[in-house]
């Protein structure tokens, strides 16, 4: 089976995220005062061949731990389609 996997990598809570801050300021300047706690990370999509959704999830976790996220500064979340 091939699974489509979405990975979201975000800066760890508590760490300064200057990009998030800058965008939050811009949103406020545009009148979107409702926005707060803006954090900016990255989204990664991929197709993963695996025997099951669980196997795909485990494999992508290994990818995140080894390369896709920095364990010192980032957290990640996975979503598997289908």
């Amino acid at each position, binding site marked *: 089976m091939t699974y489509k996997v979405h990975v979201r990598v975000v*800066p760890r809570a508590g*760490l*300064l995220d*200057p*990009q998030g801050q*800058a965008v939050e300021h811009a949103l406020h300047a545009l009148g979107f005062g409702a926005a707060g706690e803006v954090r900016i990370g990255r989204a990664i999509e991929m197709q993963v061949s695996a025997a099951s959704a669980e196997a795909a999830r485990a494999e992508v976790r290994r990818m995140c731990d080894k*390369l*896709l996220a*920095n364990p*010192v*500064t980032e957290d990640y979340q996975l979503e598997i389609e289908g």
Partner: protein
Amino acid sequence: MSLRVAVVRFPGSNCDFDTLHCAQRAGTDAYFVWHRDSSLQGADLVLLPGGFSYGDYLRSGAIARFSPIMPAVQAHAAAGGPVLGICNGFQILCEAGLLPGALMRNSRLTFVSRPVWLRVEQAETAFTSAYAAGAVVRMPVAHGDGRFAAAPDTLRQLEAEKRVVVRYVAPDGSPARGDDNPNGSLNDIAGICNAQGNVVGLMPHPDRAADPALGNTDGMGFFSSMLRWAAVPAGGR
């Protein structure tokens, strides 16, 4: 016997020639090693130069750390061999887990390219012994991702074990104020070493301040220190 110094080139390294030049000027037998090689060719010391390896894709240094040459760098470091990472080289060493912490986007989001002032806090490494402890020196930074970050415990440990090698300071050597710290690094940290002291990384560029033609030789100590290291018998290091 001349001192063998390997300068590792990654795709996107752009301070490789400067670093080689400085190491040779210091009197070492410095040579290039390509990132796809698997041998350091008998290096006594290893230098990872600055640049933008793999275009800084994903995170600075994140892909370079898996280069074929890196197992040899890891083995060299594990055996106590000195390794210096400058700028992108520092980022690679952090990504590889050879140094703790990470280099994040500068706090003001801009690429910073200008001289800064540093205090040499740890003058007992293979790359800083030519300096007097506490010496204040000037050299350029040129980076977008130079904000040193680490967990609070790691930060405390680095300070307690005197592993902050260079720290951003004001021109008179007093604690950094305002823009003296160019990137928002925690504790004004510009460079650190590992627990054994043989792996050193810093964001500023000694390689851009080590030739009289450039009007500043404050960085030369990082290269001349290597000869002092070599002069000490292995048991006394």
